[in-house]
């Protein structure tokens, strides 16, 4: 026993070292970076306080720099306000299919300006050349016809809606498939339009659906235009006088889709070739 005490006394420092070393090693390996042992946590309160004082002092010394930073940040944030930006929308809805070739692609656009109660009305869209919009593209909304793009700038496009006397599109009756022409009497009610050139032998009823034909290649086939609301036939005329209720509510228009016909060029050039061919053939 005496020997052991003697041994401990002689090697007291080494034993103390071993104890402390093992203890600190255990602390090192048991503590991770996110969680400290409870008895060690207590005293880090005043460490935090000291760091707090240091930060306060540093912040005070850096007030000018912080002011400059804040001013710069304010300017940056102000410049980043959404109102300062013109959103350049270049997305195109397209689908890859190897069996069927896609003929129409759609680009969504927002109506930024519209008139409905003028003699000839126009819509302005927030997408232009940069957004892939070209003249003569069709414009639809919720699957029903709105109009045709008439002129395009870099970032905007002007649409000739149905509510414009220059708008011309062939329509057909659902079911019978007879063709007619749609026209809007200038300055009339923006909810209605006229359909002409449907011969009288075609039976039409109130409530019949009027669709696009796809001839003009502005729009895909069978797109909704409206429903027949009135038939005012005159005895001396060979054609029906049909009034339709447009399915597009032009007064509430906000988002539209611009339709582009991928085959339009091919179709037009073929037609032009034929015309040139015909012209040269005839003496």
């Amino acid at each position: 026993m005496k020997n052991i005490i003697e041994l401990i006394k002689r090697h007291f420092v080494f034993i103390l070292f071993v104890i402390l070393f093992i203890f600190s090693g255990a602390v090192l390996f048991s503590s991770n970076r996110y969680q400290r042992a409870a008895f060690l946590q207590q005293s880090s309160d005043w460490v935090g306080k000291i760091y707090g004082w240091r930060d306060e002092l540093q912040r005070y010394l850096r007030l000018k720099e912080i002011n400059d930073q804040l001013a710069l940040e304010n300017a940056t944030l102000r410049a980043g306000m959404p109102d300062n930006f013109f959103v350049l929308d270049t997305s195109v809805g397209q689908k890859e299919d190897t069996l069927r070739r896609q003929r129409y692609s759609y680009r969504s656009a927002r109506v930024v300006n519209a008139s409905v109660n003028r003699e000839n009305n126009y819509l302005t869209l927030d997408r232009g050349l940069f957004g892939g919009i070209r003249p003569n593209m069709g414009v639809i909304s919720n699957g029903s016809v709105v109009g045709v793009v008439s002129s395009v700038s870099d970032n905007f496009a002007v649409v000739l809606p149905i509510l414009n006397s220059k708008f011309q599109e062939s329509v057909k009756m659902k079911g019978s498939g007879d063709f007619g022409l749609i026209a809007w009497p200038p300055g009339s009610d923006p909810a209605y339009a006229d359909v002409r050139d449907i011969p009288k032998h075609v039976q039409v009823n109130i409530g019949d659906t009027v669709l696009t034909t796809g001839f003009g290649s502005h729009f895909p086939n069978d797109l909704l235009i409206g429903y027949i609301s009135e038939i005012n036939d005159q005895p001396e005329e060979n054609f029906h006088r049909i009034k339709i209720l447009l399915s597009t509510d032009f007064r509430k228009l906000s988002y539209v889709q611009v339709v582009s016909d991928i085959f339009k060029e091919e179709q037009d050039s073929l037609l032009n070739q034929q015309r040139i061919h015909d012209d040269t053939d005839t003496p």
Partner: protein
Amino acid sequence: MTQIPLNILRIVFLVFLQALVVSRLQVLDGFILPWVYIFAILMLPFETPKWLVLVIAFVVGYVMDLFSGPMGMHMTACTVLGWLQPMVQRILSPREGYEVNQEPTIQKQGLRWYLTYAGILTFCHHFILFFAETLRFTPFFYQLGHILFSAMATVVLMVIGQYLISVQKGRG
């Protein structure tokens, strides 16, 4: 007896200097990170009992741990430092032993003695500290350079600090 308050003051000052200033320095993205607080342990007088050196080093390491990241790093490194400090002092002691009431300073022991003394202890401390921090040696030369250059920076800072103190004393 003025040595005791002087040493306590020195320990407190160096711990705060380390925690609030030196640890904040970002030399080469933290590649060189001097831990100058060990200067307080290296400056303990020759007469300090070995066990007291060990306990002081342990406590200083504990306080440093509170200030820096995970617990245990500085405790481990400083415990080893507190154990090695009297040994290195004894190994480097002149044949006739140290004079009474002397401190391990450049002025008293000479630059070469001090560089050896501080170099060995600083390297050992930093080696254990950096190993305890990362627990690996995978980018071997990076880690070695990290330890070596940090230890060199610590020694240089300690030498500069001593010269500054001696200049002050000379003026006074």
